[in-house]
Protein backbone atom coordinates (compact mmCIF):
# COMPACT_ATOMS: atom_id res chain seq x y z
CA UNK A 1 0.00 0.00 0.00
CA UNK A 2 1.46 3.33 -1.08
CA UNK A 3 0.42 6.65 0.40
CA UNK A 4 0.00 9.28 -2.33
CA UNK A 5 -1.52 12.05 -0.31
CA UNK A 6 -1.81 12.30 3.44
CA UNK A 7 -3.51 14.91 5.58
CA UNK A 8 -2.94 14.15 9.23
CA UNK A 9 -2.80 10.40 9.26
CA UNK A 10 -1.13 8.04 11.75
CA UNK A 11 -0.91 4.30 12.31
CA UNK A 12 -2.79 3.24 15.48
CA UNK A 13 -3.90 0.07 17.24
CA UNK A 14 -5.61 -0.43 20.62
CA UNK A 15 -2.64 1.13 22.37
CA UNK A 16 0.65 0.63 24.18
CA UNK A 17 -0.05 -0.90 27.58
CA UNK A 18 2.32 -1.51 30.48
CA UNK A 19 4.50 1.60 30.15
CA UNK A 20 2.83 4.08 32.49
CA UNK A 21 5.72 3.96 34.93
CA UNK A 22 7.99 5.18 32.14
CA UNK A 23 5.59 8.05 31.60
CA UNK A 24 4.59 6.67 28.19
CA UNK A 25 0.95 7.27 27.27
CA UNK A 26 -1.27 4.46 26.00
CA UNK A 27 -2.07 6.18 22.66
CA UNK A 28 -4.11 4.07 20.21
CA UNK A 29 -7.41 4.71 18.41
CA UNK A 30 -9.19 7.96 19.36
CA UNK A 31 -12.47 6.22 18.45
CA UNK A 32 -11.89 2.61 19.49
CA UNK A 33 -15.46 1.57 18.70
CA UNK A 34 -15.26 2.66 15.05
CA UNK A 35 -11.80 1.12 14.66
CA UNK A 36 -12.94 -2.18 16.21
CA UNK A 37 -15.88 -2.30 13.79
CA UNK A 38 -13.48 -1.67 10.91
CA UNK A 39 -11.25 -4.50 12.07
CA UNK A 40 -14.28 -6.75 12.46
CA UNK A 41 -15.41 -6.03 8.89
CA UNK A 42 -11.97 -6.86 7.47
CA UNK A 43 -11.65 -10.11 9.43
CA UNK A 44 -9.08 -8.77 11.92
CA UNK A 45 -8.53 -8.88 15.65
CA UNK A 46 -9.56 -5.64 17.36
CA UNK A 47 -5.91 -4.76 17.90
CA UNK A 48 -4.87 -4.84 14.21
CA UNK A 49 -3.12 -1.61 13.22
CA UNK A 50 -5.22 0.72 11.06
CA UNK A 51 -4.85 4.20 9.60
CA UNK A 52 -6.41 7.03 11.56
CA UNK A 53 -7.13 9.92 9.22
CA UNK A 54 -8.19 13.22 10.72
CA UNK A 55 -7.38 16.23 8.55
CA UNK A 56 -6.94 16.97 4.88
CA UNK A 57 -7.36 14.77 1.81
CA UNK A 58 -5.90 11.27 1.75
CA UNK A 59 -5.20 8.91 -1.10
CA UNK A 60 -3.37 5.61 -1.54
CA UNK A 61 -2.73 3.02 -4.20
CA UNK A 62 -2.48 -0.74 -3.78
CA UNK A 63 -0.18 -3.27 -5.45
CA UNK A 64 -2.38 -6.26 -4.72
CA UNK A 65 -6.09 -6.80 -4.21
CA UNK A 66 -6.89 -5.83 -0.61
CA UNK A 67 -9.87 -6.24 1.68
CA UNK A 68 -10.62 -2.86 3.29
CA UNK A 69 -13.22 -1.07 5.40
CA UNK A 70 -13.82 2.54 6.33
CA UNK A 71 -15.37 3.51 9.66
CA UNK A 72 -15.63 6.56 11.89
CA UNK A 73 -16.59 10.03 10.80
CA UNK A 74 -15.51 13.02 8.78
CA UNK A 75 -14.75 11.79 5.25
CA UNK A 76 -16.25 10.72 1.95
CA UNK A 77 -14.44 8.04 -0.03
CA UNK A 78 -14.09 7.09 -3.69
CA UNK A 79 -12.38 4.47 -5.84
CA UNK A 80 -12.03 5.67 -9.44
CA UNK A 81 -14.86 8.16 -8.93
CA UNK A 82 -17.19 5.49 -7.48
CA UNK A 83 -18.38 6.41 -3.95
CA UNK A 84 -17.51 3.89 -1.23
CA UNK A 85 -19.88 3.57 1.73
CA UNK A 86 -18.60 3.47 5.31
CA UNK A 87 -19.11 0.38 7.51
CA UNK A 88 -19.04 -1.99 4.52
CA UNK A 89 -16.16 -4.32 3.62
CA UNK A 90 -14.86 -3.68 0.10
CA UNK A 91 -12.10 -4.78 -2.22
CA UNK A 92 -9.61 -2.57 -3.95
CA UNK A 93 -7.80 -4.07 -6.92
CA UNK A 94 -4.14 -3.77 -7.77
CA UNK A 95 -3.47 -0.39 -9.38
CA UNK A 96 -6.65 1.27 -8.11
CA UNK A 97 -6.68 4.46 -6.04
CA UNK A 98 -8.60 5.06 -2.86
CA UNK A 99 -9.37 8.74 -2.28
CA UNK A 100 -10.75 10.34 0.86
CA UNK A 101 -12.02 13.91 1.10
CA UNK A 102 -12.76 15.70 4.37
CA UNK A 103 -16.42 16.50 4.95
CA UNK A 104 -16.50 17.50 8.65
CA UNK A 105 -14.34 17.21 11.79
CA UNK A 106 -13.69 13.65 12.86
CA UNK A 107 -11.50 10.58 12.84
CA UNK A 108 -11.87 8.08 10.02
CA UNK A 109 -10.34 4.61 10.13
CA UNK A 110 -9.05 2.68 7.17
CA UNK A 111 -8.78 -0.98 8.17
CA UNK A 112 -7.00 -3.46 5.97
CA UNK A 113 -7.19 -7.22 6.27
CA UNK A 114 -4.17 -8.44 8.25
CA UNK A 115 -3.51 -4.93 9.60
CA UNK A 116 -0.69 -2.53 8.79
CA UNK A 117 2.44 -4.56 9.48
CA UNK A 118 4.76 -1.80 10.69
CA UNK A 119 7.24 -2.60 13.45
CA UNK A 120 5.73 -2.68 16.95
CA UNK A 121 7.56 -0.56 19.55
CA UNK A 122 7.10 -1.46 23.22
CA UNK A 123 4.36 -3.89 22.27
CA UNK A 124 2.30 -1.62 20.00
CA UNK A 125 2.17 -0.13 16.51
CA UNK A 126 0.42 3.01 17.76
CA UNK A 127 2.07 6.30 16.83
CA UNK A 128 2.83 8.74 19.65
CA UNK A 129 3.89 11.87 17.80
CA UNK A 130 5.17 13.80 20.85
CA UNK A 131 7.80 11.16 21.65
CA UNK A 132 8.32 10.20 17.98
CA UNK A 133 7.41 6.63 18.84
CA UNK A 134 5.74 3.77 16.95
CA UNK A 135 3.89 3.73 13.63
CA UNK A 136 5.90 5.00 10.68
CA UNK A 137 9.14 6.24 12.32
CA UNK A 138 7.04 7.96 14.99
CA UNK A 139 5.68 10.56 12.54
CA UNK A 140 2.49 11.21 10.58
CA UNK A 141 2.36 9.45 7.22
CA UNK A 142 3.47 11.38 4.17
CA UNK A 143 3.27 10.99 0.40
CA UNK A 144 5.54 8.21 -0.78
CA UNK A 145 5.28 6.05 2.35
CA UNK A 146 5.08 2.36 1.50
CA UNK A 147 3.11 0.50 4.19
CA UNK A 148 3.53 -3.25 4.63
CA UNK A 149 0.27 -5.20 4.42
CA UNK A 150 -0.48 -8.94 4.47
CA UNK A 151 -0.30 -10.58 1.05
CA UNK A 152 -1.95 -13.88 1.98
CA UNK A 153 -5.38 -13.58 3.60
CA UNK A 154 -6.33 -15.93 6.41
CA UNK A 155 -9.38 -18.20 6.29
CA UNK A 156 -11.91 -15.59 7.46
CA UNK A 157 -10.44 -12.95 5.20
CA UNK A 158 -10.48 -15.28 2.19
CA UNK A 159 -14.18 -16.06 2.71
CA UNK A 160 -15.06 -12.37 2.80
CA UNK A 161 -12.90 -11.72 -0.28
CA UNK A 162 -14.48 -14.61 -2.22
CA UNK A 163 -17.91 -13.28 -1.39
CA UNK A 164 -17.07 -9.74 -2.48
CA UNK A 165 -15.40 -10.97 -5.69
CA UNK A 166 -18.82 -11.97 -7.00
CA UNK A 167 -19.57 -8.59 -8.52
CA UNK A 168 -23.24 -8.68 -7.58
CA UNK A 169 -22.29 -8.90 -3.89
CA UNK A 170 -20.21 -5.76 -3.93
CA UNK A 171 -21.34 -3.34 -1.21
CA UNK A 172 -24.28 -5.55 -0.41
CA UNK A 173 -23.05 -6.54 3.01
CA UNK A 174 -22.56 -3.99 5.74
CA UNK A 175 -23.40 -3.18 9.33
CA UNK A 176 -26.95 -2.16 10.12
CA UNK A 177 -27.55 1.31 11.48
CA UNK A 178 -28.51 0.01 14.91
CA UNK A 179 -24.93 -1.09 15.70
CA UNK A 180 -23.14 2.01 14.38
CA UNK A 181 -21.87 4.74 16.71
CA UNK A 182 -24.44 7.54 16.91
CA UNK A 183 -22.29 10.62 16.46
CA UNK A 184 -25.34 12.89 16.63
CA UNK A 185 -25.63 12.02 20.32
CA UNK A 186 -24.58 15.06 22.35
CA UNK A 187 -25.08 13.57 25.79
CA UNK A 188 -21.88 12.20 27.29
CA UNK A 189 -22.15 10.13 30.45
CA UNK A 190 -19.56 10.36 33.22
CA UNK A 191 -18.85 9.05 36.71
CA UNK A 192 -17.76 11.28 39.59
CA UNK A 193 -13.99 11.86 39.63
CA UNK A 194 -11.76 11.45 42.68
CA UNK A 195 -11.87 15.21 43.39
CA UNK A 196 -15.58 15.61 42.63
CA UNK A 197 -16.21 16.86 46.19
CA UNK A 198 -13.62 19.63 45.75
CA UNK A 199 -16.18 21.58 43.72
CA UNK A 200 -19.04 23.77 44.86
CA UNK A 201 -22.61 22.48 44.62
CA UNK A 202 -23.23 25.16 42.05
CA UNK A 203 -20.29 23.97 39.91
CA UNK A 204 -21.53 20.38 40.08
CA UNK A 205 -24.99 21.51 38.98
CA UNK A 206 -23.51 23.57 36.14
CA UNK A 207 -21.55 20.54 34.96
CA UNK A 208 -24.80 18.72 34.22
CA UNK A 209 -27.06 21.63 33.29
CA UNK A 210 -24.80 23.57 30.89
CA UNK A 211 -23.60 22.92 27.39
CA UNK A 212 -19.85 22.61 26.73
CA UNK A 213 -18.21 23.36 23.43
CA UNK A 214 -14.85 21.85 22.45
CA UNK A 215 -12.28 24.54 21.66
CA UNK A 216 -10.31 24.54 18.44
CA UNK A 217 -7.26 23.73 20.57
CA UNK A 218 -7.74 20.01 20.65
CA UNK A 219 -5.53 17.14 19.67
CA UNK A 220 -5.00 13.46 20.39
CA UNK A 221 -3.87 14.32 23.93
CA UNK A 222 -6.99 16.18 24.94
CA UNK A 223 -9.41 18.98 24.41
CA UNK A 224 -10.46 22.05 26.34
CA UNK A 225 -14.21 22.47 26.59
CA UNK A 226 -15.58 25.95 27.00
CA UNK A 227 -18.45 26.51 29.39
CA UNK A 228 -19.31 28.30 32.64
CA UNK A 229 -16.51 28.64 35.18
CA UNK A 230 -16.60 25.70 37.61
CA UNK A 231 -15.53 26.97 41.04
CA UNK A 232 -13.78 24.95 43.72
CA UNK A 233 -14.51 25.00 47.42
CA UNK A 234 -11.39 23.01 48.27
CA UNK A 235 -8.41 24.87 46.87
CA UNK A 236 -5.43 22.83 48.06
CA UNK A 237 -2.92 21.86 45.39
CA UNK A 238 -3.38 18.26 44.25
CA UNK A 239 -0.42 15.89 44.37
CA UNK A 240 -0.09 14.54 40.81
CA UNK A 241 -2.37 11.53 40.40
CA UNK A 242 -3.07 8.94 37.70
CA UNK A 243 -5.12 10.15 34.74
CA UNK A 244 -6.29 8.25 31.67
CA UNK A 245 -8.23 8.75 28.46
CA UNK A 246 -11.65 10.10 29.45
CA UNK A 247 -10.48 11.91 32.60
CA UNK A 248 -12.17 15.32 32.97
CA UNK A 249 -9.84 17.74 34.75
CA UNK A 250 -10.66 21.31 35.69
CA UNK A 251 -8.02 23.94 34.91
CA UNK A 252 -7.24 26.76 37.40
CA UNK A 253 -9.57 29.08 35.42
CA UNK A 254 -12.47 26.66 35.93
CA UNK A 255 -12.65 25.14 32.43
CA UNK A 256 -12.90 21.47 31.51
CA UNK A 257 -9.88 19.63 30.13
CA UNK A 258 -10.87 16.25 28.70
CA UNK A 259 -8.06 13.78 28.09
CA UNK A 260 -7.99 11.46 25.10
CA UNK A 261 -5.83 8.62 23.72
CA UNK A 262 -2.44 10.35 24.10
CA UNK A 263 -3.27 11.42 27.68
CA UNK A 264 -0.27 12.00 29.92
CA UNK A 265 0.06 9.34 32.65
CA UNK A 266 -0.33 11.64 35.66
CA UNK A 267 -1.81 15.08 36.20
CA UNK A 268 -2.07 17.71 38.90
CA UNK A 269 -5.46 19.29 38.14
CA UNK A 270 -8.48 18.06 40.12
CA UNK A 271 -10.47 15.32 38.40
CA UNK A 272 -14.13 16.30 38.47
CA UNK A 273 -15.23 13.29 36.45
CA UNK A 274 -14.38 10.41 34.17
CA UNK A 275 -16.22 9.91 30.87
CA UNK A 276 -17.57 6.38 30.77
CA UNK A 277 -15.64 4.12 28.43
CA UNK A 278 -18.77 3.28 26.42
CA UNK A 279 -19.17 6.99 25.48
CA UNK A 280 -15.52 8.06 25.11
CA UNK A 281 -15.56 7.68 21.31
CA UNK A 282 -18.46 10.16 21.10
CA UNK A 283 -16.53 12.81 23.04
CA UNK A 284 -13.40 12.20 20.92
CA UNK A 285 -15.37 12.62 17.68
CA UNK A 286 -17.11 15.80 18.86
CA UNK A 287 -16.51 18.76 16.55
CA UNK A 288 -16.21 22.45 17.41
CA UNK A 289 -19.75 23.22 16.27
CA UNK A 290 -21.22 20.64 18.69
CA UNK A 291 -22.39 21.40 22.21
CA UNK A 292 -21.97 18.54 24.64
CA UNK A 293 -24.02 17.85 27.74
CA UNK A 294 -22.66 15.76 30.57
CA UNK A 295 -24.82 13.36 32.52
CA UNK A 296 -23.70 11.58 35.68
CA UNK A 297 -24.14 7.83 36.09
CA UNK A 298 -22.97 5.39 38.76
CA UNK A 299 -19.80 3.37 38.34
CA UNK A 300 -21.92 0.18 38.32
CA UNK A 301 -23.95 1.61 35.47
CA UNK A 302 -20.77 2.59 33.59
CA UNK A 303 -19.37 -0.90 33.95
CA UNK A 304 -22.62 -2.50 32.72
CA UNK A 305 -22.77 -0.23 29.68
CA UNK A 306 -19.17 -1.11 28.80
CA UNK A 307 -19.76 -4.84 29.18
CA UNK A 308 -22.92 -4.58 27.05
CA UNK A 309 -20.89 -2.87 24.33
CA UNK A 310 -18.26 -5.62 24.50
CA UNK A 311 -20.91 -8.34 24.33
CA UNK A 312 -22.55 -6.70 21.35
CA UNK A 313 -19.22 -6.58 19.51
CA UNK A 314 -18.56 -10.26 20.19
CA UNK A 315 -22.05 -11.22 19.00
CA UNK A 316 -21.64 -9.09 15.90
CA UNK A 317 -18.35 -10.78 15.10
CA UNK A 318 -19.91 -14.24 15.40
CA UNK A 319 -22.87 -13.26 13.19
CA UNK A 320 -20.60 -11.64 10.64
CA UNK A 321 -18.33 -14.67 10.22
CA UNK A 322 -21.36 -16.95 10.15
CA UNK A 323 -22.69 -14.94 7.23
CA UNK A 324 -19.71 -15.94 5.07
CA UNK A 325 -19.35 -19.56 6.18
Amino acid at each position, binding site marked *: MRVLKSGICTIQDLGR*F*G*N*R*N*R*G*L*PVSGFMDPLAAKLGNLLTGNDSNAASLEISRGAFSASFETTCLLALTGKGYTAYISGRPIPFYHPFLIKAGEFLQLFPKETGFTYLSVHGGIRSNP*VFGSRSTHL*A*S*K*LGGQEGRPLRAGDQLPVTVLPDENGQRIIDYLLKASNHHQVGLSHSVLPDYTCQEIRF*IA*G*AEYSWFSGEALNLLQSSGFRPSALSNRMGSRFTGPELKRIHTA*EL*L*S*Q*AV*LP*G*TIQVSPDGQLLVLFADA*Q*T*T*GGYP*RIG*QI*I*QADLHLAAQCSVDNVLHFKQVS*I*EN*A*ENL*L*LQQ*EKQLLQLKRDYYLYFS
Partner: protein
Amino acid sequence: MANEESFHIYPIAESAITIEYGKEPAIAANQVLLRFQQSFHSVPFTGFTDTSITYNSLTVFFDPGHIFAKGQPSPLAFVTDLIRKRIRSFSGSDLQTPIPGNHHLIPVCYEAAMAPDLPAVAAFHQTSSDAIIQAHCAEDWYVFMIGFNPGFSYMGILPDTLAMPRKQRPALQVAAGSVGIAGKQTGIYPNTSPGGWQIIGRTPLLVFDLREAEPCLFKAGDTVRFTRIDLATFQYLNQHASP
Protein backbone atom coordinates in the same frame (compact mmCIF):
# COMPACT_ATOMS: atom_id res chain seq x y z
CA MET B 1 -0.94 -8.52 58.07
CA ALA B 2 -1.01 -5.07 56.55
CA ASN B 3 -3.62 -2.81 58.07
CA GLU B 4 -6.15 -2.56 55.28
CA GLU B 5 -7.89 0.39 56.93
CA SER B 6 -5.02 2.77 56.19
CA PHE B 7 -5.45 2.20 52.44
CA HIS B 8 -8.21 4.03 50.63
CA ILE B 9 -9.25 1.88 47.65
CA TYR B 10 -11.58 3.28 44.98
CA PRO B 11 -12.22 2.99 41.23
CA ILE B 12 -11.33 5.97 39.03
CA ALA B 13 -12.68 4.33 35.85
CA GLU B 14 -14.16 1.00 34.66
CA SER B 15 -10.60 -0.17 34.06
CA ALA B 16 -8.63 1.42 36.94
CA ILE B 17 -8.62 1.17 40.73
CA THR B 18 -6.54 3.45 42.97
CA ILE B 19 -4.93 2.51 46.27
CA GLU B 20 -4.34 5.76 48.14
CA TYR B 21 -1.97 5.76 51.09
CA GLY B 22 -1.33 8.93 53.08
CA LYS B 23 -1.99 12.52 52.12
CA GLU B 24 1.52 14.00 51.98
CA PRO B 25 4.60 12.87 50.05
CA ALA B 26 6.53 10.45 52.27
CA ILE B 27 9.27 8.03 51.25
CA ALA B 28 8.01 5.29 53.59
CA ALA B 29 4.50 5.40 52.08
CA ASN B 30 5.86 5.41 48.52
CA GLN B 31 7.98 2.34 49.40
CA VAL B 32 4.90 0.45 50.61
CA LEU B 33 3.12 1.28 47.33
CA LEU B 34 6.22 0.20 45.39
CA ARG B 35 6.06 -3.12 47.21
CA PHE B 36 2.46 -3.60 46.01
CA GLN B 37 3.41 -2.48 42.54
CA GLN B 38 6.17 -5.08 42.29
CA SER B 39 3.77 -7.72 43.50
CA PHE B 40 1.21 -6.94 40.76
CA HIS B 41 3.84 -6.89 38.03
CA SER B 42 5.60 -10.07 39.16
CA VAL B 43 2.40 -12.02 39.89
CA PRO B 44 -0.16 -10.40 37.55
CA PHE B 45 -3.84 -11.38 37.76
CA THR B 46 -5.90 -12.27 34.71
CA GLY B 47 -6.67 -9.10 32.73
CA PHE B 48 -4.00 -6.99 34.50
CA THR B 49 -2.51 -4.40 32.14
CA ASP B 50 -0.45 -1.89 34.13
CA THR B 51 0.08 0.19 37.26
CA SER B 52 0.84 3.85 37.79
CA ILE B 53 2.61 4.96 40.96
CA THR B 54 2.50 8.51 42.32
CA TYR B 55 3.62 10.11 45.58
CA ASN B 56 0.80 8.67 47.63
CA SER B 57 -1.13 6.33 45.35
CA LEU B 58 -0.85 3.27 43.19
CA THR B 59 -3.41 2.82 40.42
CA VAL B 60 -3.97 -0.68 39.04
CA PHE B 61 -5.17 -0.93 35.41
CA PHE B 62 -6.95 -3.89 33.84
CA ASP B 63 -9.03 -4.96 30.85
CA PRO B 64 -12.66 -5.32 31.96
CA GLY B 65 -13.68 -7.16 28.76
CA HIS B 66 -11.02 -9.80 29.33
CA ILE B 67 -11.98 -10.35 32.98
CA PHE B 68 -15.67 -10.49 32.04
CA ALA B 69 -14.92 -13.08 29.34
CA LYS B 70 -13.24 -15.20 32.05
CA GLY B 71 -16.57 -15.42 33.85
CA GLN B 72 -16.50 -12.47 36.26
CA PRO B 73 -19.82 -10.57 36.09
CA SER B 74 -18.26 -7.44 37.62
CA PRO B 75 -14.58 -6.92 36.78
CA LEU B 76 -14.48 -3.94 39.20
CA ALA B 77 -15.72 -6.03 42.11
CA PHE B 78 -13.33 -8.82 41.15
CA VAL B 79 -10.24 -6.58 41.03
CA THR B 80 -11.20 -4.61 44.16
CA ASP B 81 -11.49 -7.86 46.09
CA LEU B 82 -8.22 -9.08 44.66
CA ILE B 83 -6.42 -5.86 45.67
CA ARG B 84 -7.75 -6.16 49.23
CA LYS B 85 -6.57 -9.76 49.46
CA ARG B 86 -3.17 -8.84 48.05
CA ILE B 87 -2.77 -6.06 50.62
CA ARG B 88 -3.78 -8.38 53.47
CA SER B 89 -1.20 -10.93 52.34
CA PHE B 90 1.64 -8.58 53.28
CA SER B 91 2.87 -8.66 56.86
CA GLY B 92 3.82 -5.45 58.63
CA SER B 93 7.51 -6.38 58.48
CA ASP B 94 7.25 -7.16 54.72
CA LEU B 95 6.18 -3.58 54.24
CA GLN B 96 8.95 -2.10 56.37
CA THR B 97 11.82 -3.75 54.48
CA PRO B 98 13.22 -1.09 52.16
CA ILE B 99 13.11 -1.80 48.42
CA PRO B 100 16.58 -1.48 46.92
CA GLY B 101 16.64 1.10 44.12
CA ASN B 102 19.54 2.20 41.94
CA HIS B 103 21.65 5.12 43.05
CA HIS B 104 22.59 7.63 40.33
CA LEU B 105 25.31 10.27 40.37
CA ILE B 106 24.07 12.93 37.94
CA PRO B 107 26.37 15.68 36.68
CA VAL B 108 24.70 19.08 36.43
CA CYS B 109 26.04 22.28 34.97
CA TYR B 110 24.72 25.24 36.99
CA GLU B 111 26.37 27.93 34.81
CA ALA B 112 24.22 30.95 33.99
CA ALA B 113 23.49 29.94 30.39
CA MET B 114 21.89 26.72 31.59
CA ALA B 115 20.27 28.03 34.76
CA PRO B 116 17.90 30.83 33.74
CA ASP B 117 16.00 30.80 37.05
CA LEU B 118 18.87 30.25 39.50
CA PRO B 119 19.16 33.97 40.37
CA ALA B 120 15.41 34.08 41.08
CA VAL B 121 15.63 31.02 43.35
CA ALA B 122 18.59 32.55 45.21
CA ALA B 123 16.71 35.85 45.57
CA PHE B 124 13.58 34.04 46.78
CA HIS B 125 15.65 32.48 49.61
CA GLN B 126 17.73 35.65 50.15
CA THR B 127 20.96 33.78 49.59
CA SER B 128 23.62 33.29 46.91
CA SER B 129 23.37 31.08 43.82
CA ASP B 130 26.34 29.14 45.19
CA ALA B 131 24.45 28.33 48.38
CA ILE B 132 21.49 27.04 46.35
CA ILE B 133 23.80 24.85 44.23
CA GLN B 134 25.51 23.52 47.33
CA ALA B 135 22.20 22.61 48.94
CA HIS B 136 20.95 20.97 45.72
CA CYS B 137 24.11 18.80 45.63
CA ALA B 138 24.20 18.10 49.37
CA GLU B 139 21.62 15.32 49.67
CA ASP B 140 20.40 12.18 47.94
CA TRP B 141 16.96 12.80 46.45
CA TYR B 142 14.41 10.02 46.30
CA VAL B 143 12.57 9.34 43.01
CA PHE B 144 8.86 9.12 43.89
CA MET B 145 7.42 8.68 40.42
CA ILE B 146 7.87 9.02 36.67
CA GLY B 147 4.98 10.74 34.99
CA PHE B 148 3.50 13.62 33.07
CA ASN B 149 5.83 13.21 30.08
CA PRO B 150 7.87 10.16 29.03
CA GLY B 151 10.76 9.83 31.49
CA PHE B 152 9.94 12.89 33.62
CA SER B 153 11.12 12.21 37.18
CA TYR B 154 9.65 13.65 40.37
CA MET B 155 12.24 13.69 43.20
CA GLY B 156 12.34 15.09 46.70
CA ILE B 157 11.74 16.00 49.37
CA LEU B 158 13.46 19.39 49.15
CA PRO B 159 14.01 21.30 52.41
CA ASP B 160 12.25 24.65 52.83
CA THR B 161 15.58 26.34 52.10
CA LEU B 162 15.40 25.07 48.48
CA ALA B 163 11.67 24.76 47.80
CA MET B 164 10.09 27.38 45.58
CA PRO B 165 6.67 27.62 43.88
CA ARG B 166 6.55 26.96 40.16
CA LYS B 167 6.47 29.89 37.76
CA GLN B 168 3.30 31.94 37.38
CA ARG B 169 3.67 31.67 33.64
CA PRO B 170 5.30 28.50 32.26
CA ALA B 171 8.29 28.94 29.94
CA LEU B 172 7.40 28.10 26.34
CA GLN B 173 10.59 26.15 25.86
CA VAL B 174 12.67 24.35 28.45
CA ALA B 175 15.81 22.68 27.08
CA ALA B 176 16.18 18.89 27.27
CA GLY B 177 18.17 17.91 30.38
CA SER B 178 17.06 20.98 32.36
CA VAL B 179 16.98 20.47 36.12
CA GLY B 180 14.15 22.27 37.87
CA ILE B 181 12.48 22.97 41.19
CA ALA B 182 8.72 23.10 41.84
CA GLY B 183 7.51 23.25 45.43
CA LYS B 184 9.41 20.59 47.37
CA GLN B 185 10.17 18.65 44.20
CA THR B 186 13.15 18.59 41.89
CA GLY B 187 13.27 16.87 38.51
CA ILE B 188 14.78 16.69 35.04
CA TYR B 189 13.06 17.54 31.73
CA PRO B 190 13.87 14.57 29.43
CA ASN B 191 13.01 16.45 26.25
CA THR B 192 12.66 20.04 25.18
CA SER B 193 9.14 21.07 26.14
CA PRO B 194 7.14 23.90 27.72
CA GLY B 195 7.44 23.89 31.50
CA GLY B 196 6.69 25.75 34.70
CA TRP B 197 9.52 24.57 36.95
CA GLN B 198 12.30 26.93 38.06
CA ILE B 199 15.34 25.88 36.01
CA ILE B 200 18.60 25.91 37.99
CA GLY B 201 20.88 23.79 35.82
CA ARG B 202 21.19 21.19 33.06
CA THR B 203 22.52 17.64 32.90
CA PRO B 204 24.44 16.48 29.82
CA LEU B 205 23.00 12.97 30.29
CA LEU B 206 19.98 11.59 28.42
CA VAL B 207 17.46 10.52 31.05
CA PHE B 208 15.05 9.09 28.44
CA ASP B 209 16.39 7.31 25.38
CA LEU B 210 14.14 5.21 23.17
CA ARG B 211 17.15 3.48 21.60
CA GLU B 212 17.74 1.69 24.90
CA ALA B 213 15.92 -1.51 25.93
CA GLU B 214 14.98 0.40 29.09
CA PRO B 215 14.49 3.97 27.93
CA CYS B 216 14.09 5.45 31.42
CA LEU B 217 17.25 6.12 33.38
CA PHE B 218 15.26 6.45 36.63
CA LYS B 219 12.41 4.55 38.19
CA ALA B 220 10.42 5.12 41.36
CA GLY B 221 12.48 4.06 44.38
CA ASP B 222 15.85 5.16 42.94
CA THR B 223 18.00 7.81 44.58
CA VAL B 224 19.84 10.62 42.85
CA ARG B 225 22.80 12.75 43.92
CA PHE B 226 23.58 15.80 41.77
CA THR B 227 27.18 16.86 41.29
CA ARG B 228 28.34 20.20 39.93
CA ILE B 229 30.27 20.35 36.65
CA ASP B 230 31.58 23.27 34.61
CA LEU B 231 30.65 24.21 31.04
CA ALA B 232 33.65 22.45 29.47
CA THR B 233 32.80 19.20 31.26
CA PHE B 234 29.16 19.57 30.20
CA GLN B 235 30.21 19.92 26.58
CA TYR B 236 32.55 16.93 26.90
CA LEU B 237 29.79 14.75 28.40
CA ASN B 238 26.89 16.12 26.34
CA GLN B 239 24.62 13.34 24.98
CA HIS B 240 21.88 15.63 23.71
CA ALA B 241 21.60 16.13 19.96
CA SER B 242 22.65 19.63 18.99
CA PRO B 243 19.51 21.68 18.35
